[in-house]
């Protein structure tokens, strides 16, 4: 499991490999055919979702099926927000609040702890780091029943803190930031700041955090995506009247499963923030995955 480490961050910026045999690694027409086929398969279901979301229910089952977007997106989205069972607007706001607070807190606490593990000396450091790696292997869903009981005891069930507080910082985030900090922050920089009389927290805030920005960005992106997508725990602990956006579309799937345009308008809006994030940060996401930053 230690392969989860980040072996060569910024390898992309390294030197290009030298090719001694010309043609050995060049793409053939078959390469492009394969990749274009894979690309079409990747995008087709999302495209279909958008096509349906812009159509009327009458044409969805047509033979052959419609392949271009229609003009009904506005009315479908209108029906979506008017729907009495979806609580869609509430779900969107809740998801935005939950995903942003978990993201900010995870990045902050994970980078703080990662910095401590990478650069500070203290007793028991290695043992403590090992416990963090061990926690990464625990499947979180398995603790869901007592976690729910805890929430009942705290009176948090059906409140948003139930889906925020347990995820304020993850072992994976700490480990990832530790790996990056170990190589991205020179010891000299920290020593220099100490000589200048900076407190340890000041060093973190003014020296370390800026240096950690690329890794913090990737961690933030993935945390946001994961939190936005979370389904099982919100389903267990929240109630349908105060949902996250995933539970809103679940409400729709539950009660309106034959109203495809309504459901698909919901899924389109639910996916939209992720697609925007992806369009803006696509390259960073690719880099993050290739450096092992995303745990399934």
């Amino acid at each position, binding site marked *: 499991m230690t392969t989860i480490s980040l072996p060569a961050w910024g390898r992309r910026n390294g030197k290009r490999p030298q090719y001694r045999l010309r043609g050995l690694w060049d793409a053939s027409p078959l390469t492009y055919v*394969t*990749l274009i086929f*894979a690309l079409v398969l990747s995008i087709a279901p999302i495209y279909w979702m958008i096509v349906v979301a812009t159509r009327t229910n009458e044409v969805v089952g047509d033979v052959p099926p419609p392949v271009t977007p229609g003009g009904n997106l506005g009315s479908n989205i209108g029906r979506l927000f008017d729907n009495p069972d979806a609580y869609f607007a509430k779900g969107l706001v809740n998801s935005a609040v939950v995903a942003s607070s978990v993201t900010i807190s995870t990045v902050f606490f994970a980078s703080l702890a990662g910095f401590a*593990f990478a650069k500070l000396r*203290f007793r028991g450091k290695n043992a403590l780091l090992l416990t963090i790696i061990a926690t990464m292997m625990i499947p979180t869903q398995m603790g869901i029943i007592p*976690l729910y*009981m805890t929430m009942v005891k705290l009176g948090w069930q059906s409140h948003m803190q139930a889906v925020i*507080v347990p995820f304020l910082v993850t072992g994976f985030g700490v480990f990832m930031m530790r790996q990056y900090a170990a190589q991205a922050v020179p010891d000299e920089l920290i020593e220099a700041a100490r000589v200048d009389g900076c407190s340890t927290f000041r060093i973190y805030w003014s020296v370390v955090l800026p240096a950690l920005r690329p890794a913090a960005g990737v961690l933030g992106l993935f945390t946001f995506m994961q939190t936005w997508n979370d389904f099982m725990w919100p389903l267990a602990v929240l109630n349908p009247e105060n949902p996250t956006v995933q539970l809103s579309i679940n409400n729709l799937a539950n009660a309106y499963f034959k109203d495809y345009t309504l459901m698909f308008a919901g899924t389109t809006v639910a996916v939209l923030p992720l697609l925007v994030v992806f369009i803006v940060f696509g390259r960073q996401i690719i880099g993050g995955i290739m450096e092992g930053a995303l745990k399934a």
Partner: protein
Amino acid sequence: MVDLRPVRPDAEPAAPPPDHRHAKRRSRLARLDMKLSPYLFISPFYVVFLIFGAFPLVFTLWVSLYNWGLASGTREFVGLENFRFLVSDADFWHSVVNTFGIFFLSTVPQLLIALLIANTLSRRMRAATMFRIGMVVPLVTSTAAVAIVFTQLFDRDFGMINWLLDLVGVNPIDWQVSRGWSWVALATMVNWRWTGYNALIYLAAMQAIPKDLYEAAAIDGASRIKQFWRITVPMLQPTIIFTVIISTIGGMQLFVEPVLFGTGTPNRMDGGAVHQFQTVTMYMFDNAFIHDRYGYGATIAWAVFVLIIIFSLLNFLAIRRAGGAK
């Protein structure tokens, strides 16, 4: 340890001569800061983990020894009765078989296709970044949204997949009703989402393989296919182990897709009328949250946890053996 750090002059009061006591207190504070800060910095993780991670996990074991209902208020110690029941619970084992079935149908093709795509992506080509980004589009969609879209695509009467099959002369398939076909449909959703992710992980590992190996093999007349199986795959072995374990952990916990695939049935946690696609996680959820059997739910949770560990270990050993035999 003697603190040799100079005190910053501008931080001192300018007029009076340096106050000895003041400087001493500063250095004591600095030493305290050095000593305590690391623990302070890592403590948020441990606080969150102990309360919301470790405690629930241990408490699961405790709960599993009880007949525990939250709605009914029952709380009766039954010892190992839940575990005894679990061993002979046909519904539980049925859901285990479903979970493994879907897991095999998703993981094996997924990782093979990912390997091939990664091999293709590792060529020098135009628009490489566009293709890479395209591969992970499925990953940035929401699982629930995708499950809803695919459930419609797999609809018996109006789904596009049956329509496409009809074009090539295959009779319509009732994807939700048949046990095997429902597994295929669910595995398709999982594969669609994760193949590109695994391809990129393999691609990253492939780029770290020294190019001379391929050049030497090419000079020796080894075909590309032979190079792929004899150089690329063995060199990727640690990465393959990593992806298999990640897929195992994910596959054993499959939940969102089958729940939404059962849309239209009275209790979606059943996974179909005869539980044909009910996974173990759904069975746990159904017992605890739908039927108020938290004790038994906790027992299932522990069983799944043990299954994941055993199965990850078996996979790990199998792949290492397969790699060593080559």
